[in-house]
């Protein structure tokens, strides 16, 4: 497997040479990761687009890492020549999420940024685009954030059909029938 990653290693090296303080990794066939700081992303994307031929933006994604209080933004770009996917990843502060507006590099980023702004609450200063994209009259927290509990919202807002209240839990029933007492610390390993 390792021997076949020549193209990928080359791209990783090229980026490494062009930028300081970035970490690159040839992960697997057709895939290269570049971890950069928030400020570097636009110059890396421009460099890859203009100099290395990564002309096509495949994807932009946002991941909520609630545990470390960060959002991870991932730009996936693709080159028609080398046919590699380059992932440019950066992490931004979750409390005050802001990212550079880049819809002048690729027009489609406009759509992605609109969605991420709405779903995660990440702001893109200087970005023009209608505020409402998918949702309408949404007053709650941005729904794709991990601390937004969709089930709780559903229970508060919508109805559920009656007639299913007599359901039972198999494990509880067995424990009750046999007199087993499951200690509290073990319950997290019980079936959901």
């Amino acid at each position: 497997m390792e021997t076949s990653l020549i193209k990928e290693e080359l791209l990783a090296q090229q980026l490494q040479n062009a930028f300081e303080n970035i970490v690159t990794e040839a992960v697997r066939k057709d895939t290269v990761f570049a971890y950069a700081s928030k400020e570097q992303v636009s110059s890396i994307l421009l460099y890859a687009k203009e100099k290395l031929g990564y002309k096509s933006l495949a994807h932009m994604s946002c991941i909520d890492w609630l545990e470390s209080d960060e959002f991870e933004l991932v730009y996936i770009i693709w080159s028609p020549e080398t046919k590699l996917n380059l992932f440019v990843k950066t992490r931004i502060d979750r409390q005050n999420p802001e990212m550079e507006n880049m819809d002048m590099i690729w027009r489609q980023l406009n759509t992605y940024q609109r969605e991420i702004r709405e779903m995660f609450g990440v702001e893109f200063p200087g970005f023009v685009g209608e505020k409402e994209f998918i949702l309408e009259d949404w007053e709650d927290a941005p729904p794709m954030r991990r601390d937004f509990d969709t089930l709780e919202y559903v229970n508060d807002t919508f109805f559920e059909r009656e007639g299913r209240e007599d359901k039972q839990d198999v494990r509880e029933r067995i424990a009750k029938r046999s007199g087993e007492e499951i200690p509290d610390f073990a319950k997290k390993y019980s079936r959901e």
Partner: protein
Amino acid sequence: MYNDKNAQTIVEYIQNFTRKNSLFMLAYGTGCGAIELPATLTSRYDAERLGVRGAATPRQADLLLITGYLSTKTLKRVIRVYEQMQDPKYVIGFGSCTINGGMYWDSYNTIKLLDKYIPVDVYINGCMPRPESVIAGFKELQSLIAAGKADGAAKYKENLEWYRENQKKVLKNWPLVEYNW
């Protein structure tokens, strides 16, 4: 027959007979079940032989198909469309999603129980319902109409307050227009 309290008068009978045999359904694909509608209406299943065919605008339509889940954003439009439709009007709910939320039961953006927001005359089982099921649904609706039991629209008018209350629970910031049907 004439002693039966539920028996229809001749006029009602003729009315229902004509209504059931020309159901114009509104071309509004509200959800994924709409993908089986082309198949239902075209040559293999040919729902048109039951008198079911498309209508372009709400005011010409008798039948509103809620083809699966309804997001809250669409619900707003559906209510509007439904209220614009002229009597007699009927609603068919497609698939699991309209009955108890279906596979989007825990989604923050779809309603779960359709009958809390607009009256539904027939539910079709499936996710999504096959054309055969859809045709079975049409037939069921026709028999309900013939028996004079498809009275969803009347129910809606009677219980408008209750429906409005439920609708307002999910639809914020929307001045609900009163139509003079």
